């Protein structure tokens, strides 16, 4: 479980996040949604510690993460997996080596064991016969799936996905969404997904937090969205003509 309390962050005097508190449950796909520039990536980066929050606390299973020393943070980070917007695979390594990398760094497994684990993770994300290809030789969707395989290689407790569907076609997006949800439930992971893709929201969002102008504006499940009368949320979710007609706006 991840708990954040009163997270605030400013850049050059401009407040980007203001007093955000939330709890993200284990075994659930928690979504952070909001318009581009609303502050959701900054929030995710503050939660994982890539950015330091000006105020507030981030707890990982009751451990106050953002006040830990660099070395102690490293121990928690070994329990994290992250899927970046651009996949962030290591260019100089093959698909197989990318997935084996965290195993090389943090386990004492034999080469055969590491290979077996890497193959298991790759098969789990439906990557077959691509072990020796390099990131620039595979498609965007495959890159995302390899990045998920790398993120789950060490059996993480926490999975973070920053806009997992950006740059993907709708069909591949659905595949990635369901993969994230299945893995979350299968391994009982606390998953946080940062997205503005409404298909993801309605498809996998167990818990949804709507960020508006750097503030937590709304919180609920995907079903609650349909009944919500929150003006800003409705404007964001039902922005297209079609969805507005469905909602009756």
């Amino acid at each position, binding site marked *: 479980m991840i708990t954040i309390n009163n997270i605030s962050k400013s850049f050059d005097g401009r407040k980007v996040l203001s007093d955000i508190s939330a709890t993200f449950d284990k075994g659930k796909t928690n979504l952070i949604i909001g318009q581009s520039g609303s502050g959701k990536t900054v929030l995710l980066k503050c939660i*994982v*510690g*890539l950015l330091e929050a000006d105020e507030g606390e981030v707890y990982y299973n009751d451990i106050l993460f953002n006040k830990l020393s*660099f070395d102690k*943070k*490293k*121990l*928690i*980070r*070994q329990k*994290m*997996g*992250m899927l*970046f*917007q*651009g996949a*962030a*695979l*290591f*260019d100089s390594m093959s698909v197989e080596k990318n997935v084996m*990398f*965290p195993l*090389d*760094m*943090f386990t004492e497994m034999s080469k055969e064991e590491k290979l077996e684990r890497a193959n298991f993770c790759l098969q789990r994300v439906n990557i077959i016969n691509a072990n020796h290809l390099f990131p620039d030789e595979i498609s965007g969707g495959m890159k995302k799936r390899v990045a998920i395989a790398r993120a789950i290689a060490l059996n993480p407790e926490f999975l*973070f996905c920053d806009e997992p569907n950006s740059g993907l076609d709708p069909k591949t997006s659905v595949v990635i969404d369901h993969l994230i949800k299945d893995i979350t439930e299968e391994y009982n992971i606390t998953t946080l997904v940062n997205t503005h893709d409404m298909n993801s929201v309605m498809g996998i969002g167990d818990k949804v937090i709507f960020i508006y102008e750097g503030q937590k504006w709304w919180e609920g499940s995907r079903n609650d969205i349909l009944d919500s009368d929150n003006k800003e949320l409705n404007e964001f979710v039902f922005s297209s003509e079609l969805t507005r007609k469905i909602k009756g706006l």
Partner: protein
Amino acid sequence: MTIVGILSINLKFVKNKRFMLVKVFHLFGEYVLFLKKVFSKPEKRKIYLKQTMIEMDKLGFLSIGIVTIISFFMGAVITLQTAYNIENPFLPSYLIGVGTRDSILLEFSSTVIGLILAGKVGSNIASEIGTMRVSEQIDALEIMGINSASYLVLPKIIATMLFNPFLTMLSMVVGIIGGWSVGVFTGVVSTQQYIDGIRYAFVPFYITYALIKMVFFAFIITTISSFYGYRVQGGSLEVGKASTNAVVMSSIFILLFNLLLTQLLLS
């Protein structure tokens, strides 16, 4: 222009200069903190050792070609220039060998090769790390719990500090061979005179001096280039700028340390 106007312009100038000074100190502070992060305890020594070997191949072995070519031609040019400068019946020809040897050992094989490596290796390091930064590969390392600065930079520092002195020695040998071959080919000096010159009043410490300088230069090139690459923010344009800045700053610091080390080691 009124006095108030002139004063306000001067005040602006002073303020800008002060701001620049603050920026320089800020940058230096950032560099020191970066080095602190680089020299922290490695996560897994075996992996770092493997990375060091890879970097030796990439940054060292792959520089052998350019060092050899440049050294050969520079040795040749130094020999010819020395020959033209001492064209005097009262000066013995073996002095051409002496001049070539001392120029190569004292300055060329360390400083000039250092500057060339700042261009080749420095830009390579800055652009590689910079690209990793903008494509979030460095963030991916951090999220895994890996000290990205140490993992990416420490093997490069060790690799270049160990390998570059070999490049210096190679440059010395090839430079002297270049001088000999062109000297003999053009007839400005005979083989015997050239060898006599190479052996005349030889100071072995010059080799040590050149190697010490190269170790310092290797550290400067690697750390400054890595630093500029590591702090890139933005996109490909910024990676290009970082690469240029890395080469410029490395070259400036090589020249500065060349002066300091020469004063310290030869005075």
